[in-house]
């Protein structure tokens, strides 16, 4: 774990603004594990909130039109498929579904989560209906992940601050499914002003919640690290928290859940922080899923220019640099950051061990660099490359800019290719 300057203060206080939907939407078809298949014809007309693509199986999901208009077919940008939707700005919507919250059944809740394409908003896009489908497993802690530990990002913070009541209603609703004995909010100390607000609102609504203040460290919002900080349980990567009596949900996801059941709308909008040294009109925006990066840049008064700036989709630690300006916002993107191009000062690894000190998974990242280049699969396995959560803390701290993330991705690929 490591302290990283949070850089959130510039956007934290700015209320949520709505970004108008663009002329052309690029709806991402990539999901947690797989791709969605389009279920509408090319050039057909779709209404706002209509389902346009879906997938099946345990990790099934779907995506809906954020606006009415014409389907313009699939495109492949940077190895990911997108479905193009041309906005006709008529806002012809399918009628919002009405729910009677008081006697809604568990099954109805779960099937609606699937039907409305609700996915984890923290980045991994894990299908929410799968997460809450805990069956008969007893759940003792329902953790609300409000530790938005990525620098710059303040989308979850603004949601919690401005939609406290709504989020608590969503929590109460999900409690019908998981029936956890305790609800705990995990919040970083830097946001402790939220504590009285949440406690008071929860009291008014008669929901028993606890607040766990977490150290301002990265990656405190990593699911495994958060679980340990809140419950003391250290569970290995790849295990299902529900098996340990834990469900973790992200603030953004809860907001999507609220919109689904109280507004009757599927997951078509999310809150995105726009920030960074080179950004203008920074703040937290409500953005339609599928809004292309280039459109966002134009709206805030910038132009796409790959040589003078880097645009990141997501946070600065785990996000990805945007290569093609058309790519659309997906359900897991919490931020668009425009920053100066990073400069690398490459030296040899000096074995300082800083990467070991900061690794939240207690790995030895420099060994991945060593054995990825020699393609020593056995050693990569011995050093547990698969337990890496790709948080980037090691590469952040490395004084020699050793290409650690590269090695980690390569190492994981190498392991995947063998049966070891």
């Amino acid at each position, binding site marked *: 774990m490591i302290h990283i300057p949070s850089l959130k203060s510039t956007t934290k206080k700015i209320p949520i603004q709505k970004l108008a939907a663009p002329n052309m939407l690029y709806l991402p078809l990539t999901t947690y594990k797989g791709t969605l298949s389009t279920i509408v014809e090319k050039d057909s007309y779709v209404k706002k909130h209509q389902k346009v693509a879906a997938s099946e199986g345990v990790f099934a999901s779907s995506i809906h039109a954020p606006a009415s208009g014409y389907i313009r077919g699939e495109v492949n940008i940077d190895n990911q498929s997108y479905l193009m939707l041309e906005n006709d700005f008529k806002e012809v919507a399918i009628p919002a579904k009405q729910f009677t919250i008081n006697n809604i059944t568990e099954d109805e809740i779960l099937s609606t989560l699937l039907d409305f394409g609700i996915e984890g908003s923290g980045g991994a896009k894990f299908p929410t209906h799968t997460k809450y489908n805990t069956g008969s497993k007893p759940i003792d802690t329902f953790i609300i992940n409000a530790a938005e530990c990525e620098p710059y990002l303040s989308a979850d913070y603004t949601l919690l601050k401005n939609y406290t009541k709504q989020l608590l209603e969503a929590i109460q609703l999900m409690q019908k499914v998981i029936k956890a004995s305790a609800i705990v909010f995990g919040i970083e100390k830097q946001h402790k002003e939220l504590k009285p607000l949440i406690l008071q609102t929860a009291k008014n609504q008669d929901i028993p919640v606890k607040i766990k203040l977490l150290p301002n460290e990265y990656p405190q919002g990593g699911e495994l690290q958060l679980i340990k900080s809140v419950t003391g349980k250290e569970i290995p990567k790849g295990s299902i928290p529900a098996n340990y009596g834990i469900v973790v949900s992200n603030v953004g996801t809860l907001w999507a859940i609220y919109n689904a059941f109280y507004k009757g709308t599927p997951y078509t909008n999310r809150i995105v922080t726009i920030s960074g040294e080179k950004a203008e009109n920074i703040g937290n925006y409500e953005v339609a899923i599928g809004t292309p990066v280039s459109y966002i840049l134009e709206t805030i008064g910038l132009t796409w220019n790959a040589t003078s700036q880097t645009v990141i989709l997501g946070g600065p630690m*785990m996000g990805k640099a945007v290569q093609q300006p058309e790519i659309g916002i997906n359900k897991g993107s919490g931020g668009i*950051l425009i920053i100066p191009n990073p400069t690398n000062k490459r030296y*040899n690894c*000096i*074995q300082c*061990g800083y990467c070991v000190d900061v690794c939240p998974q207690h790995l030895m990242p*420099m060994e991945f660099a060593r054995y990825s280049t020699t393609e020593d699969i056995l050693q990569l396995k011995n050093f547990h490359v698969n337990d890496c959560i790709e948080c980037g803390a090691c*590469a952040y701290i490395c004084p020699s800019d*050793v290409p650690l993330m590269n090695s980690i991705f390569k190492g994981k690929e190498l392991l995947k290719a063998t049966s070891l």
Partner: protein
Amino acid sequence: MSLNPYIKPKKGNTSFVMLDVIIALLPLVIAGYFAYGMQAMWLLLIASGCALATDVIFSALLLKQYRSALDGSAIVTALLLCFTLSPITPWYMVAFGAVAAILFGKITWGGLGKNRFNPALIGREFMAVFFPVVMTSAGIWATKDYIQTPATNLFPGLSNEYLSSYLSGLVYKTNGAMGEYSIALIALGGFYLLLRKRISWHIPLALLAVFFGSFWFIENGQNYSYSIAGVLLGTLFMATDMPSSPTNNYGKLYYGSMIGLVAFIFIIGKVSYEYMSYAILLLNGFSYKISEVFRPKVWGEKLDYKKRVEHIFYLTLSILGCTLAILSLHYYDMVSYLIYIYIAYIVLKFNFSFIKNITNPI
């Protein structure tokens, strides 16, 4: 294409790490100037100049890059080398030591960070092997005539004479190697590095605890003589050298304790000068293995402690075995052969193996 993360800490790169080490060593340079004036300064300058030149020339020739040679590590090596030498060591020997340190201690390994042994100590051992007569003569420590500022009682206010002279000795004295004139300043440099997180407390604490603990444990421990300043200098600046020490905390604790133990064994085995360098160099050789054996427990992992204990046992056994071997070689005056073997090994290894990986950062 650049990968995440896209932000970096300011002033955190490797040349800043080296700069911090140089800053920590500067007070000792000043103490050296105080004690031996330009005599000491010339040696430091010659060593630094030779080290830098060797680094630039051979990085360009052998590693096909020279930018990295200017990261400051050559200066660190040069200063540390001089700090283990007498201020009246002939200049050509110092130059030879500095060249050897960089060339055989660093470049032939593939450059900064890839070396398994502390370059400064490698340089020192090369000097000891190639100039054995001068390096072990009593004359080289007869420095009285060169002293610029004699040590005086710095605490005249204290009525207890023993205490005041003891304290004065901690702050400033004039005997010993160039880095040993002020225990207080050595400690100050160490604290600076600790504060800046350039070293962690694990190695120094374990080392000193085991070293002094061992002398306290045996009978007549006080009868053995060793240089406290030298031990401290080695502990804070050489045993903690990043490339040649383990990378995880338990590994560092073990490594530190073993240096302490091995140095102790060398002292009671009558290795009179080289105990610290031998101990550090020996453990340098095991450093990677130690990092591996003491790999931290991965998140959520169930460690096989039985296996780990077994590994530690065999590791300790091999370290102690090597200690006894070196002790025997020392007894028969054959340590020089180790250096010859080292030269042959590193030259072959460079030409047939390391050269292929010079563009790899590790």
